[in-house]
């Protein structure tokens, strides 16, 4: 294919502008975070005397250690269980084709577009009656349920394309359903499972609504919920707020940059299927 020079240069220029627009908010956060705390810096201006100390102060103020621990605990509660349950159900619906599979699948698909706001009110009373308000379980358990439609949908899409001969040979070897699942199908499903894990991690870590409604104590919330509380508390001290926001962003950014190939792949696939 011939690429005209002019086309290539327009493309490059456009990409650079687009990247600049994308990065602008991050740059603004960073520059502002270096201004003396309590001031209202004007736009993008490098401070005369960069206050690197704002970062350790924000680290203290945001209680970062507790936040990281809390978010990690919530992710560890949500992601493995969601993956296990989603994979099992996807396997039964997509590969075993259990009796009534189409109806169950439809039931799950109905939940794919559900806005969380739609059920947050009854969920609050339900969690209260279960005595789980203000605990991490209040975020973990509903999130597993809310992630089921996508997890089942995603894993079913994988299992539907697995050839039946695989199970045939296992059956001749005398494997039962669980062994068939555990020994043959789970190992083959690893690429689909790891993409799902990335998406679920991201959606858990960034979950905001459930965190602010069901848990009062920021130290028991997700990162996102904690950031909301941090804004409420330090909203008037702009440089400190910016420093705190950046700190709270750092773990996500670090994980994204390490696994970026997987992330980009998972997110593209995820939205195509979702």
């Amino acid at each position: 294919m011939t690429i005209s020079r002019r086309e290539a240069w327009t493309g490059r220029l456009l990409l650079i502008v687009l990247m600049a627009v994308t990065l602008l908010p991050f740059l603004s956060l960073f520059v502002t975070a270096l201004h003396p705390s309590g001031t209202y810096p004007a736009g993008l201006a490098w401070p005369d005397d960069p206050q690197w100390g704002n970062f350790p102060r924000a680290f203290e103020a945001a209680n970062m250690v507790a936040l990281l621990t809390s978010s990690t605990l919530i992710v560890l509660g949500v992601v493995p269980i969601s993956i296990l349950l989603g994979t099992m159900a996807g396997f039964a619906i997509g590969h075993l084709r259990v009796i009534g599979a189409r109806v169950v699948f439809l039931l799950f698909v109905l939940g794919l577009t559900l806005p969380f706001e739609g059920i947050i009110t009854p969920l609050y009373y339900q969690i209260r009656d279960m005595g789980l308000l203000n605990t991490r379980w209040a975020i973990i358990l509903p999130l597993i349920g809310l992630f089921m439609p996508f997890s089942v949908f995603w894993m079913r899409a994988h299992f539907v394309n697995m050839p039946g001969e695989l199970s045939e040979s296992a059956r001749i070897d005398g494997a039962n359903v669980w062994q068939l699942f555990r020994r043959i199908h789970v190992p083959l499903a690893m690429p689909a499972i790891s993409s799902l894990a990335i998406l679920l991690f991201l959606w858990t870590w960034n979950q905001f609504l459930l965190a602010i409604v069901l848990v009062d104590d920021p130290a028991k919330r997700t990162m996102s919920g904690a950031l909301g509380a941090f804004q409420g508390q330090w909203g008037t001290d702009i440089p400190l707020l910016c420093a705190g926001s950046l700190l709270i962003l750092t773990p996500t950014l670090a994980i994204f940059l390490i696994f970026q190939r997987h992330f980009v792949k998972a997110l593209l696939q995820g939205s195509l299927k979702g």
Partner: protein
Amino acid sequence: MTTRPLAARPAHRRAPARPRGARGLAGWLFVIPALAFYAVFVLRPIALTFQYSMYEWNGIGPSTWVGMANYGRVFTDPDLFDSLINAFQLIVFFSAIPVVLGLAIAATIRRIATSRLAFVARTVLFLPQVIPLVAAGIAWSWLLASTGVINQLLSLIGLGGVTRAWLGDFGTALPAVGMIGAWVLLGLCTLLLLAGMSKIDPSLYEAARLDGAGAWREFVSITVPSLRQEIAVCVTVTVIAALASFDIIYIATQGGPGNTTMVPGLQIFYLAFSEREVGTASALAVVLMLLVIACALPIQWFAKDGNR
């Protein structure tokens, strides 16, 4: 990477051989745990939302049956109805801008999609998808503030006259919030569309060039029709993001000034947890859930039509 049809249809292939009983009890044991979580934490609350919406209840005391009165309020009380209107206006920013601009950008950078610069761009453009929306809200509130970067840039190019606190102005708050959403979704749409374009057969373009088609003709006759499915995905994702928006608005404006940026999600939150009007909140929640489905389904049908 193969993309499958959106709402995957049941595959009508020869049923594979399975261990005995796998379609019955043994198979169902695999489904039941997922179904149980889904039923307890999603289906039951959905049913309860419908039930609550028929009652007047302050969340503590006794409740009174009021039939459809709460729905009447959703469509007659300007405060509630406006939130629905606002959500639809947000679609312009959350969907139209990212999809149209995304198409234009993807078409322009298609030829250099394999360059090193494009590789870096893929990472950068995904950042808004990875960070919490709350963080996007905080960063943009500051950018759009009266002393923020946006106003600084405007003054720089001689538009000092229009500078203002964008999120605090009755006339500009909703578009300003919409721009935050456009920023979040533009990268995702561009990359999705770009991935779709890479699957278009290059010979189509060569044939068009031989026939003397210009860039615009190419775009309209080849690119857009081939991307039907990707466009449908972008529209679905962004329309849902607009209708169900919460995080960004909660952080950036809290629905203000006045009610100018109030959206259904935030209104439900206030009604249920501040004003203790659980019935009205639930009626609005039902309307929101139905709206999302009513918007998502036709787009899916549209996409599927194109594949047949």
